[in-house]
């Protein structure tokens, strides 16, 4: 795996280039903000009919990560479904694929702001989960320690000798790690957003996705313009 290894509260973690977080010692794979059923929710609202392939695409990525790591526990860190209706009206083939993925391992659905309700797909639905030194929840709390969360869809804008690159990224400091959005149809929030700036400590790193995961200081080399979250279809 072309991941980036780092330590949080003594736990050795790997930020995978796919956007998943792998805790090898505990056999735990964490993904966040899958937003399954997003295109469908938008279609339901009567607007544009986006290509109905996002859920399949997101799942096939997840299948890849699970095949590569063979985790004992999978944690979906909230906003796994774009809304509660999406969770309850999954296409049969998608539901089957999810069941197959969950077979033989512990599967934890953390509640998100998009999908607060329990999920009828097996697994355990929790508001948050504690395991070893780490706490898993959807939205980071400013005063938390050893916390793994998602929600913000962090995205790093890099200016590399005139090259402008924007990629989803992990954010990590000694207190927490924030995961990028794993779902296919997801926008991003630039790192200079005040909320991210307030959450992350001065030594925070951004681990940028791509063919390989690269770690950079969060507050260096970022694009300067403050921008609102670009996720307007949601």
């Amino acid at each position, binding site marked *: 795996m072309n991941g980036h290894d780092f330590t949080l509260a003594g736990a050795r973690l790997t930020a995978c280039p796919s956007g998943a977080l792998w805790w090898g010692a505990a056999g735990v794979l964490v993904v966040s903000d899958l937003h399954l059923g997003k295109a*469908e929710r938008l*279609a*339901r609202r*009567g*607007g*544009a*009919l*986006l*290509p*109905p*392939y*996002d859920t*399949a*695409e997101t799942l096939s990525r997840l299948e890849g990560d699970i095949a590569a790591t063979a985790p004992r526990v999978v944690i979906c860190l909230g906003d796994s479904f774009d809304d509660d209706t999406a969770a309850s009206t999954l*296409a049969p083939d998608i539901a089957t694929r999810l069941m197959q993925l969950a077979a033989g391992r512990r599967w934890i659905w953390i509640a998100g702001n998009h999908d607060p309700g329990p999920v009828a797909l097996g697994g355990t639905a929790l508001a948050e989960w504690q395991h070893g030194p780490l706490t898993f929840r959807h939205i980071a709390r400013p005063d938390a320690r050893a916390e793994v969360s998602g929600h913000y869809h962090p995205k790093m*804008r*890099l*200016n*590399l*000798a*005139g*090259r*402008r*690159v924007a990629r989803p990224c992990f954010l990590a400091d000694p207190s927490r790690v924030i995961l990028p959005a794993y779902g*296919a*149809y997801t*926008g991003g929030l630039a790192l200079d957003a005040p909320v991210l700036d307030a959450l992350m400590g001065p*030594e925070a*790193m951004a681990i*940028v996705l*791509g*063919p*390989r995961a*690269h*770690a*950079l*200081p969060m507050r*260096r*080399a970022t*694009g*300067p*313009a*403050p*921008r*609102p979250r*670009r*996720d*307007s*279809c*949601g």
Partner: protein
Amino acid sequence: MQMPARFTDWFAARDWTIHPHQTALMARANAPALLLIAPTGGGKTLAGFLPSLAEIAQNPAPGLHTLYISPLKALTADIRRNLGTPIAEMGLPIRVEDRTGDTSQTRRRQQRADPPHILLSTPESLALLLSYEDAPRIFAGLRRVIVDEVHALAESKRGDQLMLGLARLSRMCPGLRRVGLSATVEDPAALGRFLAPYPDPCAIVTADPGPAPDIAMLDTGTPPPWSGGGGRYAIPAILEQVARHRTTLIFHNTRAQAELFFRDLWLANDDALPIAIHHGSLSREAREKVEAAMATGALRAVVCTGSLDLGIDWGDVDLVIQVGAPKNVKRLVQRIGRANHRYSAPSKARMVPANRFEVLECHAALAAVRAHDLDGAPRGPGPRDVVCQHILASAAAGPFAADALYAEIITAGPYGDLPRAQFDACLEFVATGGYALRAYDRWQRLKQGPDGRWALRDPRTARQIRMNLGTIVAAEMLKVRMRPARGGGAPLGEIEEAFAATLTPGDTFLIGGRIVRYEGLRDMVVEVSRAATKTPKIAVYAGTKFATSTQLAERILAMMQGPDWPDLPDHTAHWLALQRQVSRLPSRDRLLVESFAHDGRAHLCVHGFAGRNAQQTLGLLLTQRMEAAGLAPLGFVATDYATLIWGLDEIPDPAALLDAGGLRAAFEGWLAGNAVMKRTFRSAAVIAGLIERNSPGRRKTGRQATFSSDILYDTLLKYDPDHLLLDITREEAMKGLVDFARIEDMLTRVRGRVDHVRCARIPPLAAPLLLEAGRIPVHGSAEERLIEAAAARLMQEAGLG
């Protein structure tokens, strides 16, 4: 119809002669479709209106009689004022109103309830009117449609949308007559086919073109620089010309260049001649102020862009200066026509090449103008994304039968040949998304009723559809305004969002001739303050970069093959001679490729003369092939004439890279993943309604529909490669930004005759490309290496390594 006595008296009282083409339009007032081709200043617009004025004067019944469509909002306001004079002076009982995006909601509602005799509008406003359920009532009794500047509309999707609208109007209002007003074009018959209901004929009236223009190169004293644009070196000579004429229009090809030029012009404007700037990125208030000052003759010059290509005639313009190569002979002729202070006197124009290459292009253009040799590419079939939007808008207006809608659409000139199967695919796309995966009932925007007619599944979405009508897909722009002490500051204009994203507080840039300091972004408005600095960052506006036309490129190639160049300035002739000595000169039926080392990089220059867009595509294709071959390309830059590629390794056999079959295969594969294709896709997706620019409630927050269209593109390509929108994108890729058609033309022309010249030093023709802006990086393995290096360095600097 005869010219009524009241009209001839009015002309006589003003001491005006009625032009023969104005009489001709009256005489043929009953023609179902009529196209008037006349130069600027020939009273073209009045000619179009005279039959309407006469008919309404004769029978002033209430209700809409004439619909006038112009590509420019500003034009409709001017026309309203200009028509006001004859109507008032002749005492005609005629009500004229305009309706554009700027018209207030109250006024629009009044117009729908009680339409004026003459309504002045734009293609977008017409599309919107037609999307209302009461459209048949609004347009009941409509007799004539006047399409102004139809030559300009015919060059874009706005024209296709308009013709679909006219097809609807013709069905609603049997006997509706169409009149098109056009500047000089290369193929009037083709424009007639565009305008007339298909397959009916179009009558054409050609006005006297007037005397040949007085056009020449401006003698600047100093030679132009090697590369770049803007023509700032010529400012002293241009100021001298401005001083010697009443009113001068100084045309630039891009907004950024106009801004830079304007600023430097003012620095040199010691006599403080009143000179203004006008371009599409300035705020409406700023533009209107300039237009009003022009109209009263208060300005001695206006620095402008294509925003003044069209529009009313300002009577006092007696000189046009074109800065930068004209790129296109037809547009040059139309711009020259702007200097039309007297219809019977020759228009006067001077050209200022911005760099050495443009000296050649300007000379080629001069020869073409003198030979009345206009350029232009034939129009392809009407684009289908516009059909998709039209279907959606039709559904907003009410339930429709597919057969009837198809029958109507194929009476529009651009869609006369639209196969039924293609229409059905568009309908399918609008109704269900048209995806290969037919999964859910929920994927339905339109539903078929029991009577077989199609209707919106949720009628409340009509509002959203109306908010997204229109075919102009510009880069996302942000408004710029002065940071106020309190309350709202003065609006200055707009800049591209991508440009705004590169700004850091304290950065400076030019807008409206002022240098401003970037303070921050608030509520999606760029706030700035006055800055005292002298060297601004340059705003990269979205202004279209036109590619040099095929005809001009061929003239340049022919010129290069001459034994010597007595007509060219010495510096340019010397440059060509040196190129011939060091390497060779490009020719029409061979492809010159030069390789040389510079700055530690291997360089390859391909002199394809295929126009900026095609040369850029060639750069993308070649670098992709190089990447595949492990040749580690780092980037390239393209001009209208050549592509320069640099990389780590020397290219041993460029001819193999340029092999036609390989390039075509690369093009097919490359459709997959590059930025230009994604932009092309985005524009088609916006027009076809897959991506919504506006939705109720979102306008306020300024959040745009930038749910990345790139992701949609990648997903479709992976899961649904035959989807309609990808098909449309491929079709678009042959022209426009991608312009693969011109690469094909070049390959056909060259037929494998590639001359590879290895140069020990930088060859003269390639040298300017090294200075060219707009370098495009190759996102390949090199990029990963760069990120890796940067990550290592930054981590180390931060003490985290």
